[in-house]
C-alpha cells in the first residue's frame, strides 16, 4: 500500500530517528595528539585517504585538522609546527547515543564534512561522515526490503500479519496547529478498538497530543511515530531543531519559550513536557542545540501500578 510521495522521505526520517549515531559512525578513527606535527597529519591523511583528523588530549577532542589547514601550512611553511598551533579549535562533536537525525541536521546546518563522535564522558569514540550515513541508510532499507520480500506479501503494510500491532509515522509542520491531534485521535481509536481501560487511553492520548503540539509550536517541524503492540505503546517524537539548551529547565512546570501567537492558541503554558513525563511510564528526552530533539514515551497497556 503505497502512500503519497511524502511517504518515502517520511520513511527515511523515521530511519534516521530510530538509528543511533553509534550504529552508523566509523569506530576506527585516526586521531593525533597536540604535539604531533602538521607533517605527521599530512602523512596520515595521505596514507589513509581521509580528509580530516581530530586532535585529542587524553581522549578529549580539542581540535581538528582539515585538508584546508594542511594546504595552508604548506603555503606558510608550517609543516614542522605542532598541530596545536594551527588546528581549528571550534569543534562541533556529536554524542554516540544521539539519534542519527541529529547528525543529519548537523550536516545540513554546518559546512563541515565530518563530526567527531564522543561518549558520555566526552571521549572520542568515532567519527561520522555523510558517507557513513548513506551506507547505513542503504543497508537498513535493503534489510527492510528483504524482510518484506520474505514475508511474501510484496508491498503490504507490516500490520497485516498481526492486527494488534500498529505502526505509523505522522509528519508535523511548524505552526500548523490544525495538523496536531491526528496522531492522538488515531491512537485513541486504536486503543478503544482493543478495549483498553479508558484511563490508560487518556494518558496515552494526552501524552501523544502534548508531543504533537510541542513539535508544531517549538520546532522547525518533525515526525511523530506511534508503535503499539500487545503490551505497550511507544510514542517517539523527533524534530530537526532548534533543540533545547537546558533540558532541566524545559522539564520545569511553567517554563516556556512560547511566543504570543502560540499562547493565543492556548498553548505555551510550560506544561507540555512535564505533563507528558508525568503521564508516561517511561520517558526519555535527548536534545542537541541546532540538531533537534527526540522524546520517547512508553505507556504500558497492562500496568502493575498506576503512576500518580
Amino acid at each position, binding site marked *: 500500500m503505497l502512500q503519497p510521495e511524502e511517504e518515502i522521505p517520511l520513511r527515511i526520517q523515521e530511519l534516521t530517528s530510530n538509528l543511533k549515531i553509534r550504529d552508523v559512525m566509523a569506530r576506527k578513527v585516526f586521531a593525533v595528539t597536540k604535539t604531533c606535527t602538521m607533517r605527521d597529519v599530512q602523512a596520515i591523511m595521505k596514507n589513509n585517504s581521509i580528509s580530516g583528523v581530530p586532535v585529542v588530549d587524553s581522549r578529549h577532542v580539542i581540535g581538528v585538522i582539515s585538508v584546508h589547514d594542511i594546504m595552508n601550512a604548506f603555503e606558510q611553511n608550517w609543516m614542522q609546527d605542532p598541530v596545536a598551533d594551527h588546528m581549528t579549535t571550534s569543534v562541533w562533536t556529536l554524542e554516540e547515543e544521539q539519534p542519527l537525525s541529529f547528525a543529519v541536521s548537523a550536516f545540513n546546518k554546518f559546512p563541515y564534512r565530518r563530526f567527531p563522535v564522543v561518549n558520555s564522558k566526552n571521549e572520542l569514540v568515532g567519527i561520522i561522515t555523510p558517507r557513513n550515513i548513506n551506507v547505513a541508510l542503504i543497508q537498513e532499507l535493503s534489510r527492510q526490503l528483504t524482510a518484506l520480500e520474505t514475508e511474501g506479501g510484496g508491498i503490504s503494510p507490516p500490520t497485516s500479519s498481526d492486527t494488534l500491532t500498529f505502526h505509523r509515522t505522522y509528519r508535523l509542520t511548524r505552526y500548523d496547529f490544525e495538523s*496536531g*491531534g491526528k496522531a492522538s485521535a488515531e491512537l485513541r481509536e486504536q486503543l478503544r478498538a482493543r478495549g483498553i481501560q479508558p484511563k490508560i487511553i487518556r494518558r496515552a492520548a494526552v501524552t501523544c497530543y502534548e508531543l504533537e*503540539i510541542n513539535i508544531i509550536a517549538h520546532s522547525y517541524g518533525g515526525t511523530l511515530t506511534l508503535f503499539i503492540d500487545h503490551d505497550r505503546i511507544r510514542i517517539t517524537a523527533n524534530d530537526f531543531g532548534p533543540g533545547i539548551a537546558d533540558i532541566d529547565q524545559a522539564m520545569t512546570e511553567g517554563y516556556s519559550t512560547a511566543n504570543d501567537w502560540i499562547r493565543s*492558541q*492556548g*498553548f*505555551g*503554558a510550560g*506544561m*507540555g513536557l512535564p505533563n507528558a513525563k508525568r503521564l508516561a511510564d517511561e520517558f526519555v528526552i535527548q536534545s542537541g542545540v541546532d540538531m533537534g530533539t527526540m522524546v520517547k514515551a512508553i505507556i504500558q497497556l497492562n500496568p502493575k501500578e498506576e503512576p500518580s
Partner: protein
Amino acid sequence: MKTNELKFDGLDCVQPASSDSEITGGYTSDLLSDVMAHLKEGEALLTIQAHKNTVAVATLMGAPAIIFCHGRIATADVLEAAAKENIAVFISANSQFETTCRFAKALGI
C-alpha cells in the same frame, strides 16, 4: 446534571450532545496544557479559546461540554468537530468569572 439540562442566564446551547451525557463539574482555563493536566472526566470546560484545538483537548480529557465565555463565536468547523465527538457546545454572553459562578450555581456546587 445531564448535559442538555444545563441552563442559566446568558447561556445558549449552539450544539446539543446527541446522547445525553452527565456533567459532574467544571474546569475554567484558557491554557490547554493546564486543562490537560487538571480537567477530570465529566467536567465541562469553560474557556475563551474558541477553536478546534479546544475540542481536541476536551475530547482527549472526556469533557462532555464546552462553554465558550464572553460571547466568543464558535465557528462551523469547531461545531462540526464537537458534533463528531458528541461534545455539547454552549456560548455564554458573560465573562469567564461570571459564567463560572452561574455554572456552579446551576450545578448546585
